[in-house]
């Protein structure tokens, strides 16, 4: 298994470099460097020229890319153009908020999604099944910002609608962010469980005299939930994407909010840093899901 993990990590490296390259390329072909953007009126051409050389802004693109990766490896993502702080510092301040929110939303989606999926599978084609599957499709089809606004308007007299200070203030953002993930997990749990229940070994388990509940918890669930683990990786991606909107609406000073601010203020290094940081998290999530998969499924473990 150690081999498998090492191999899996090695495959990740080119993806990581390619990803940084893509972002760096897109953001650095924009005409106008920071000096020109910020100081045009205040400095004359000669001074600008000098400063530019000092800041290595005239170096060839590839040189700048390699330097950026090198610095990033050392935890340096450059300086924000507008906030006069290092991007690393800004992200470090913001990330705990995003992380707390994402964890809360992930927990919400699992606690909601898995039991609903199980009940729907057990009571297949019943009213409960149709209702919960309809509801989950509803969840997947609903724009995040829309449900956020509606919940805010509905509960604004009962619950906090901005920031992440008290536990109550977690409630609305968590529901908003976890809602569609919960729907996806419920649907996946249901379809996997139904598929697993068709297997011969389920009949074997029933032939032992196990109750329907124990057949599901003891025999079917583990098999059915193994593929759900891979969804975790996708879930991380969608939670972090969703966090951009959720944080904006609920005024949570997280990484997603930082990215939106960076766009609105045209703060290139900050945008670059937040996007790359988020993408690295997603790649790490994929990696984690694969490793978890190999731990849970004995069939992969021996290979």
């Amino acid at each position: 298994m150690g081999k498998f993990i090492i191999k899996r990590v090695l495959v990740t490296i080119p993806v990581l470099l390619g990803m940084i390259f893509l972002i760096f390329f897109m953001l650095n072909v924009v005409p106008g460097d920071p000096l020109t953007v910020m100081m045009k009126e205040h400095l004359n051409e000669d001074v600008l020229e000098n400063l530019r050389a000092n800041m290595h802004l005239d170096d060839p693109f590839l040189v700048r890319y390699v330097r950026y990766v090198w610095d990033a490896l050392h935890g340096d993502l450059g300086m924000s153009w507008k906030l006069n702080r290092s991007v690393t510092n800004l992200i470090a301040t913001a990330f705990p908020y995003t992380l707390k929110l994402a964890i809360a939303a992930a927990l919400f989606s699992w606690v909601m999604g898995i039991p609903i999926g199980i009940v729907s599978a057990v009571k297949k084609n019943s009213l409960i099944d149709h209702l919960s599957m309809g509801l989950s499709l509803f969840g997947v089809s609903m724009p995040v910002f829309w449900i956020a606004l509606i919940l805010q308007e509905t509960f604004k007299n009962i619950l906090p609608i901005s920031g992440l200070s008290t536990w109550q203030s977690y409630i609305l953002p968590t529901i908003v962010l976890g809602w569609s993930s919960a729907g996806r997990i419920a649907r996946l749990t249901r379809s996997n469980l139904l598929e697993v229940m068709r297997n011969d070994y389920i009949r074997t388990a029933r032939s032992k005299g196990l109750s329907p509940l124990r057949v599901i918890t003891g025999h079917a669930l583990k098999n059915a939930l193994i593929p759900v683990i891979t969804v975790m990786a996708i879930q991380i991606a969608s939670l972090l994407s969703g966090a951009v909107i959720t944080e904006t609406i609920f005024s949570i000073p997280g990484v997603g909010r930082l990215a939106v601010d960076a766009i609105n203020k045209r703060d290139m290094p900050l945008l670059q840093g937040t996007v790359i940081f988020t993408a690295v998290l997603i790649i790490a999530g994929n990696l984690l899901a694969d490793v978890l998969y190999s731990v849970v499924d004995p069939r992969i473990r021996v290979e």
Partner: protein
Amino acid sequence: MKSKKDVYSAEVAQEMLEAEAEIQTSEGVFKSILTMFRRNKAALLGLIVIVIILLMAFFAPVVCRWNPTEIRLSEIKKGPSAEHWFGTDELGRDVFARVVYGSRVSLMIGFVPSIISLVLGTLLGLAAGFLGKKVDAVIMRLADVVLAFPSLLLAMVVMYTLGTSILNLFIALSIIDWAGTARIVRAQTLSLKEKEFVEAARSMGVSRWKIVFRHILPNCLPNLIVLFTLNIPGSIMWESSLSFLGVGTQPPDSSWGLMVSQGKEFAYMCPWLILAPGLAILVTVMAFNFLGDGLRDAIDPYMKT
């Protein structure tokens, strides 16, 4: 050893049967889609809703009594009535008309990037699967990179770089979707490449491109239809999110996402300003999801999200 051989040959027979089932004729696919619509009422409903929405978008001037851009200061922020079905906005414009006309932008942004990414993803997937080696490696690593991104942030970066315009929205959203399509087409190309009829065609000296477009592409079509159907609601959602954040559709154009964004300041006093366009998104996206799910079950019961 007799029985083992029997088991073995039974397995081979099973595999051959599955292979046959995989390569459905277009007639067979058509038939199974028809059966699906008869059984799966949700998919049928989805299709009907989509057709209605498309017709409304197309015949917008006939459907709407009011001009969506006409500012009438006497009619500001009126609630829903027989006159104005979805009420009026802060400038006295008819919200129903704005939603109907807004569907033109939202639907266009649903369809165009899905078509672009379908064509792009198919071509790249075919190239990767059929040419193999270096081409395959380069295309697939690129797809990995794109798939590793949070889609919304990637689209935001593209919009930041290129600037906000409808054309750039098409580009940003196409970049999100092509990678998934390419992966699936590549996987199918690889498995089809090994099939007897492709081998046979090759042994008869049929040219490579003919094999790709005559034999492999048609067999990918059913899955492509499903992907296309499910990419459309995705694009509509991304556009609405981008517009909400201010980097999508720009006024004077109007899309559903932008309408929600503009209405949010008045959400408490005039909830219809965000309810109407939001419901439009919800209904449209759900209709496409119902249809896509149904098509997927009909075409390939084993392909899962």
